[in-house]
């Protein structure tokens, strides 16, 4: 009974997965059906493009920076939300919004907030005399600020996902251990860093691994906020693959760029399976 489902998924995930590798070593073109093996020629021409190395580096910066921020924010949020208190449901609704609203739509909201002329952030900064009225920060127009902006917006979107996973993990920690530690005189931070966080490590692992996959392979926030600009300075591997392979119609080179996502996926998948099998043993 699972055969139809497996065939469906194999046809639309397995087949294109294999094709992606074949495209990267072939001469596929839009509109022609021919295929010839060309070895590593596509790889060579991708490596000659400085934008590729920039995108590779940016992918790591984007992923690591946003996941660190997500992890810190999610831990604080989860600790704040774990016990019931009046107003928790209403608060949760507000916190959930960035995750459930379509990312593309949330990002366009940010594009307006970070607008070059009408940015509300700049309006406040100018009133507080933290920014110059005549040359306010161009959030999406200067390379460093643009990178910072896409990282923060992506963090904004991903925060809830990690928080909820952590919350699920916290409820599975037996309450009596931290409580006993409190009776023994351990302070809040000592309990947090020496008991609660170590006990939550497996679940933090899960949250981080999912976060890495969803960040390393995503291009939505970047596509909407900066289109990889200014001058390719916020381009990441997925967005570069899109511009090259889909908009630029160079299927082979686009496939080569996408292929560089695979090592990361393999590492994450392997670590996830390890986490899962450990949880079963204990």
């Amino acid at each position: 009974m699972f055969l139809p489902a497996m065939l469906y998924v194999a046809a639309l995930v397995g087949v294109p997965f294999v094709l992606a590798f074949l495209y990267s070593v072939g001469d596929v073109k839009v509109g022609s059906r021919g295929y010839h093996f060309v070895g590593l020629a596509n790889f060579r021409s991708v490596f000659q493009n400085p934008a590729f190395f920039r995108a590779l580096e940016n992918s790591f910066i984007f992923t690591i920076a946003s996941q660190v921020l997500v992890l810190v924010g999610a831990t604080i949020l989860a600790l704040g939300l774990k016990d019931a208190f009046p107003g928790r449901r209403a608060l949760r609704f507000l916190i959930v919004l960035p995750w459930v609203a379509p990312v593309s739509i949330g990002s366009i909201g940010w594009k307006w907030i970070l607008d070059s002329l009408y940015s509300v952030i700049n309006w406040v900064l100018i009133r507080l005399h933290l920014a110059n009225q005549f040359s306010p920060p161009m959030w999406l127009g200067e390379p460093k600020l643009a990178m910072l902006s896409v990282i923060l917006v992506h963090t904004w979107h991903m925060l809830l996902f990690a928080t909820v996973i952590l919350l699920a993990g916290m409820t599975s920690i037996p309450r009596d251990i931290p409580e006993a530690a409190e009776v023994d005189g351990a302070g809040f931070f000592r309990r947090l860093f020496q008991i609660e966080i170590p006990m939550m490590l497996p679940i933090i692992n899960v949250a981080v691994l999912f976060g890495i996959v969803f960040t390393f392979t995503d291009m939505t926030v970047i596509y909407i906020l900066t289109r990889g600009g200014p001058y390719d300075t916020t381009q990441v591997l997925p967005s570069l693959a899109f511009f090259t392979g889909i908009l630029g119609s160079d299927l082979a080179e686009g496939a080569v760029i996408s292929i560089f996502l695979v090592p990361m996926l393999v590492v994450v998948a392997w670590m996830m399976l390890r986490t899962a099998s450990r949880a079963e043993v204990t």
Partner: protein
Amino acid sequence: MIGGLRARRRARAAVRWATLATFAVALAFPFYWMLITAFKRTGDLYDLKNSPFLFHEAPTLEHVRFLFRETLFLRWLGNTGLAGLAVVAITLLFATPAAYALARLTGRWGERIGIGVFLTYLVPPTLLFIPLSRIVARLGLQDSLGSIILVYPSFTIPFSIWLLMGFFKSIPRELEDAAMVDGLSRFQTFVQLVIPISLSGILTVVIFSFTLVMQEFVYALTFISSASHQTVGVGVPIYLVRGDVYYWGSLMAACLISSLPIAILYNVFLDRFIAGFTVGSVK
């Protein structure tokens, strides 16, 4: 001593509230901003002398009216609804029997296939979109809703199988055996007993698949090239912008209208949705 404890508790509650309130404001701010922008008159919106937080002229419905009358917004909503229903139907049709079979498959194999199903969920659209765009074109589905209706189940099915497996496993086997002793076939047992018991799981799958159609961006952007065939998730951020002109009022109204209903819906099912992610790793 007791007084000290109470004071400490009160201080802790205050810190908690301050922290959570800060987060809530930062996280919900863009939506508040959409709300303000959507109802502000154009002159007020673009006057830099005015405080952007307040209405200096009376609020207006002009942007909302423009959105519904002059743009393809309604069309996009319709497309999203249609594609959503189709994806939900395909997902249920394939995922429910598969999940049931896997839940009842004993031994290492059931588990291995379960893990395999789960791993396919990690393969991202940005790796597959180039080959898929050719497959979609070969099937004659380019630039039509058919393309996403075909492709979206490739990730809703694995996720739904994973989620439903948990539900089906929790049904005691004896219950099914008893039903079959009473003369029901396995198929009848499945339809008359298993499905009604797992209704909340199935409902979660429905909501998940439907909202995914609203949220997905990369595939819809890749496969569909004309504005009139788009879903809300791509139509609003890409096609409401004409040239370099942004109709911020209407754009923010569209954002608000397309995110609030799904936020409310999702909020109800959030816990179960997350259980789908953690069920394999947390026991």
